[in-house]
């Protein structure tokens, strides 16, 4: 920079900046430095001079800057929506049931309250020994209802919240602990940041997934190329190993050499020499990195960048190029170029690379470009990203002339971008097309299998990507997103104007409606622009489409559109899971019911915002099918059981009040009541978090079983009614048996109370035992140990003379009739339940039951209906899809440094060096210019 190092801290100036906003693509500010450094002159500052929050700086020793916005006023802080607290479907259901129970409780209180008052006035006044005052104040009427309210208050189990919090914490821990979800490459374990929503994992209906970095490795590898009409790498799938290409390099075929030169130096990559002699390439774009690596693999090694001089090591000879100008990439231009001077010969070259539609039209007249467009077509069919490489030799005076214009355009204050583009255009013509490079973004391991399994489990996938349509479709095909023809069908929605989009949307809807009855795999494809229009103007139609379609591919969508789509699905009452890996997925992740972040090479931003972070996409299968499913099942049992036990004791209190003059006497003493919820009944059910109805293997083999969780089959009003009925039945059993066997001379209050209570404890132990699917030693300990603990606790309390139940438990345990009564209660209470369960289990089995039986008996089921591993190779030729519109012939090309959402995400990640440092030099040079001008 133009300022001395030791003077740097004395710089004084002023930055005029706009109010904080959330547009991360714009920043229009001015910088004024005070004398003596600069005159009071305005330097424009744009987004290119800006470093966004939580960016990592790379490839520099130092940097100086000024903090413009801080905290929540940063661009990122403004974008960060306030994440709503997430409530799981199970929690919502529990709340609903709690509400229902509350209403029930009110009704009971009202009925009993009225009955109590009537009984009081008709009967109790005759009971002289109760001494009811003949005339009381009016509020006496409220005493009995309030008594019943007090009695019935245990009907809503308070312990359920505590128990649920405990087990949810444990679910989350199980995810953290899971060895099978540790990414072996990076040793990243899965992590559950949100401990409260594990059940929702088992109820996911829609998964919205990002593409790059989530489904794919985001690790670009140069795979194929076509150099002046010759295809390399087609047979073995790797151009670097293609003998022909290696030979061509060895024989110094000029086309190939030029091709490699463009690959090696037409970029903004910075090579860093490491201690051990290897070279580390730091690139903003993964594509550029891939190209440079590939060039190095073909002996065109980009060794050093010394200011503007690049050292290329080709077959042990060093070639030096001086970079004169960089014509940067913009998403409008879709290409980038560099002007270099060969230091030996002094010749000037323009080297370009870019999307085919941006490069091929600039071809020199007379050059046949058909081969190249065919190559592009072929590669994009395979899901490869393509880049066209071209070059041109420049005349010295042509360049000088242009260079002046370029400098002028660069210092323009008005419409700078447009003017630069226009100037660049003047140089990028008559290019000689060298060839097409195809880069593969490899799918992560196990992605197709994971998606296949989850789709079998009834989960619908939407892919939301910033990529182009063709790439997205190809990736979708290779990931089993859509079945290939003839089962699958892709419906395209596009259009630039509202009308076009509407027509297209209506057409797709019509097709959807027709095919919805057929077992056909229909997916719609929409791009960001059409989506914007559809969401804004045809919200209803699009909603219907969302309801109908199981699969969707949305390309070129922005982060906020991703979030909008999540919102849309949420408004259709679907459980959504959003999975992504980068900063552009954060909104979607926060918006969805469940956000899953992949802690990959894009950094941890998504993983930090997410509820769950996993190392690889394939762990999603285990997260949902194993952890989600078990969590749902366990919570379903735990919550209903909590209601059951509270209702049981409450029903008994109600029954007792019927024989105690509807006066609201509590049968149980307060110690027992408190201990019942806290100690006696909560431990066995807590250990139920270890329960597994089906083994993990069976679930993986039959992912369809997840349907039970998705549809909420294990926790809904009707299953709850079953538990309600069971508690009523058990209350009747316990109460009737106890008051009959402890009648007459035995009907002592404290004794009867303990008999009834122990009846309840026995029953609940057996209920838990009957509902437990797999007994581990801990479950046995908890269930039977709890029963023993009940007696021990009561013996201890019975040994205290001051307690109301002094000696009671000892007396009871000595009576044969007590044990006979307990035995009777257990059998009478559990017999019908067992019989019913057995009958259903055997003659009306649910899928879960069948699988359990099969698993236990080792039947042939384990081999039946297996999911054959889908080893669909990426290279495999995918059968063409029927697309209801003529396929657009646009190539698959991801912008290298675009302002597309994808690139924005990049700039957040740690692997992404920031623009600032190239712009730095430009900034300083523009300062210098400004100084000169003044």
């Amino acid at each position, binding site marked *: 920079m133009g300022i001395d190092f030791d003077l740097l801290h004395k710089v004084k100036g002023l930055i005029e900046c706009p109010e904080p906003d959330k547009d991360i693509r714009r920043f229009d500010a001015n910088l004024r430095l005070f004398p003596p450094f600069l005159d009071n002159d305005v330097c424009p500052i744009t987004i290119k001079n800006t470093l966004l929050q939580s960016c990592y700086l790379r490839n520099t020793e130092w940097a100086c800057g000024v903090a413009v916005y801080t905290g929540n006023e940063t661009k990122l802080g403004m974008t960060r929506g306030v994440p709503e607290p997430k409530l799981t479907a199970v929690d919502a259901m529990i709340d609903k049931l709690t509400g229902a129970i509350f209403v029930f409780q009110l009704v009971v209180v009202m009925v009993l309250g009225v009955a109590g008052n009537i009984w009081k006035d008709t009967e109790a006044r005759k009971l002289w020994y109760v001494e009811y005052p003949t005339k009381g104040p009016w509020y006496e009427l409220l005493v009995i209802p309030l008594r019943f309210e007090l009695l019935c208050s245990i009907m809503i189990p308070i312990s359920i919240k505590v128990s649920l919090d405990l087990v949810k914490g444990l679910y989350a821990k199980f995810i953290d602990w899971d060895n099978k979800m540790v990414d072996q490459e990076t040793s990243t374990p899965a992590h559950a940041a949100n401990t409260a929503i594990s059940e929702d994992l088992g109820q996911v209906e829609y998964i919205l997934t990002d593409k790059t970095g989530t489904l794919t490795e985001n690790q670009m590898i140069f795979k194929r190329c076509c150099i002046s009409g010759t295809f390399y790498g087609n047979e073995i799938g790797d151009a670097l190993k293609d003998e022909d290409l290696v030979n061509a390099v060895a024989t110094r075929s000029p086309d190939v050499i030029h091709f490699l030169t463009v690959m090696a130096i037409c970029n903004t990559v910075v090579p860093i020499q490491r201690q051990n002699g290897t070279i580390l390439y730091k690139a903003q774009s993964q594509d550029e990195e891939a190209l440079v690596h590939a060039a190095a693999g073909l002996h065109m090694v980009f060794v050093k960048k010394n200011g503007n001089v690049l050292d290329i090591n080709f077959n042990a000879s060093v070639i030096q190029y001086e970079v004169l100008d960089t014509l940067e990439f913009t998403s409008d231009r879709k290409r980038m170029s560099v002007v270099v001077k060969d230091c030996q010969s002094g010749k000037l070259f323009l080297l370009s690379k870019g999307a085919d539609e941006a490069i091929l039209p600039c071809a020199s007249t007379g050059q046949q470009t058909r081969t190249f467009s065919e190559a592009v077509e072929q590669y994009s069919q395979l899901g490869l990203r393509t880049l066209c490489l071209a070059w041109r030799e420049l005349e010295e005076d042509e360049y000088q002339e242009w260079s002046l214009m370029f400098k002028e355009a660069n210092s323009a204050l008005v419409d700078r971008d447009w003017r630069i583009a226009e100037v660049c255009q003047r140089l990028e013509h008559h290019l000689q097309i060298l060839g097409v490079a195809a880069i593969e973004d490899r799918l992560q391991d196990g992605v197709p299998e994971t998606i296949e399994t989850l789709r079998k489990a009834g989960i619908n996938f939407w892919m939301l990507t910033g990529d182009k349509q063709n790439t997205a479709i190809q990736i979708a095909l290779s990931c089993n997103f859509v079945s290939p023809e003839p089962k699958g069908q892709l419906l395209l929605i596009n259009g630039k104007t509202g009308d076009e989009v509407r027509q297209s949307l209506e057409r797709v809807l019509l097709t959807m409606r027709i095919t919805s009855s057929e077992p056909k795999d229909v997916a719609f494809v929409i791009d960001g622009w059409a989506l914007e229009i559809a969401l804004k103007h045809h919200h209803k139609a699009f909603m219907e489409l969302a309801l109908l379609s199981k699969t969707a591919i949305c390309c070129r969508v922005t982060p906020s559109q991703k979030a909008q789509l999540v919102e849309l699905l949420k408004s259709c009452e679907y459980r959504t899971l959003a999975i992504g890996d980068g900063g552009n997925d954060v909104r979607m992740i926060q918006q969805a019911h469940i956000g899953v972040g992949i802690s990959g090479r894009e950094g941890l931003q998504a993983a930090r915002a997410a509820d769950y972070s996993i190392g690889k996409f394939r762990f999603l299968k285990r997260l949902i099918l194993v952890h989600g499913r078990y969590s749902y099942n366990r919570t379903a049992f735990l919550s209903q059981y909590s209601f059951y036990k509270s209702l049981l004791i409450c029903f008994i209190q109600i029954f007792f009040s019927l024989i*105690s003059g509807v006066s609201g006497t509590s049968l149980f003493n307060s110690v027992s009541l408190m201990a019942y919820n806290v100690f006696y009944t909560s431990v066995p059910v807590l250990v139920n978090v270890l329960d597994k109805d089906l083994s993990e293997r069976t679930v993986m083999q039959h992912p369809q079983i997840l349907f039970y969780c998705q549809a909420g089959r294990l926790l809904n009003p009707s299953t709850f009614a079953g538990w309600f009925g069971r508690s009523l039945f058990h209350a009747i059993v316990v109460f009737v048996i106890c008051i*009959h066997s402890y009648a007459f001379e035995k009907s002592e209050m404290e004794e009867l109370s303990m008999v009834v209570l122990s009846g309840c404890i026995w029953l609940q132990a057996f209920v838990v035992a009957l509902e437990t699917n797999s007994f581990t030693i801990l479950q046995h300990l908890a269930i039977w140990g709890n029963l023993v603990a009940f007696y021990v606790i009561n013996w201890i309390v019975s040994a205290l003379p001051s307690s109301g139940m002094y000696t009671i438990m000892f007396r009871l345990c000595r009576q044969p009739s007590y044990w006979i009564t307990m035995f009777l209660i257990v*059998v009478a209470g559990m017999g019908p339940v067992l019989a019913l369960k057995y009958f259903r289990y055997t003659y009306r089995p649910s899928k879960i039951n069948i699988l359990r039986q099969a698993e236990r008996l080792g039947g042939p089921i384990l081999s039946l209906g297996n999911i054959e591993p889908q080893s669909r190779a990426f290279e495999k030729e995918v059968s063409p899809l029927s697309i209801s519109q003529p396929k657009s012939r646009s190539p698959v090309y991801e912008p290298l440094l675009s302002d597309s959402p994808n690139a924005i995400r990049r700039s957040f990640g740690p692997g992404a060096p920031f623009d600032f440092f190239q712009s730095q030099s430009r900034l300083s040079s523009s300062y210098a210019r400004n100084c000169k001008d003044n």
Partner: protein
Amino acid sequence: MNSNNTPSSSAGGPGSAAADSTAPPTTRNSKRPKYSRFTQQELPACKPILTPKWVISAFMLVTVIFIPIGVASLFASHDVVEIIDRYETDCIPEDSRKDKIAYIQSSGDKTCNRILNVTKHMKHPIYVYYQLDNYYQNHRRYVKSRSDQQLRDRDSENDTSACKPEDKTANGSTIVPCGLIAWSLFNDSYSFSRNNQNLSVNKHGISWKSDRDHKFGKDVFPKNFQSGGLIGGKHLNESIPLSEQEDLIVWMRTAALPTFRKLYGKIEVDLVAGDVINVTLQNNYNTYSFNGKKKLVLSTTSWLGGKNDFLGIAYLTVGGLCFFLAMVFTIIYLVKPRRLGDPSYLSWNRNPGGH
């Protein structure tokens, strides 16, 4: 239920863990979760399933256990000899029956003679109970109206907050024992004679020993009891400590049901079949205002307690039902066998692709 406790397939945990531990490269991160069977949810578990064999056997087992217990309980209950005499109406002279309440509240002699016929040999000890019907000792106002502190401890005499409205006399002195329960102490009394020979009733040891020792103080004496305008029940001898007022102690053990028996005393001699017992009773207690019944019960006892057929009948019924269920399940099983875990029942196997 299946008691076949072979560990399930998940017991293969350690093996897979060993395989896991060899896989990762040397860069083992400390973040990596530690392996344990608990954390991996791989504790060896037994997964019982409801096979017909086990369910039918379970029901048969219950039958086999329940029928004998039921029979034994019934026999025990039938061995108990019980003489019940309901006297609350008969002990009111014919002319007073129109207004029983007036009769019972009037002062004067309310002696009543009853004759009990012993039909079966009764071995001593014979328990003498009084049974009250439709008497709500479990009423909320009633059951709380006592002060355990006061009963136990002389110094807590004034601890009568729970006893309202029978906590203090009109002039403000504390009642001991306070509360509705004590105040309404049953005051009918019985004396028995056989062949004009007095049958002594042992009234010692009719209450729980623990109550006498720990709940009712030896140095707590009745005070101001039944001295108010309204007399509830029996008067207490103020020179006898509460721990020896066994009628009170028995009465203070409130009954949980509106029909209950309380021990009055024990007859320590055998009664022979054909014996005629004359009972002279003082019919003092007012159950007429609420149509309550009063019964005098003489009963022997068995290992199961008094005469109560409920347990025996319930055991036989439940045992019978279990037998019935076992039979039904067996028949269904034989007539319509159904293979457990048949994959053809899985709908997605039948119709692939559909859910």
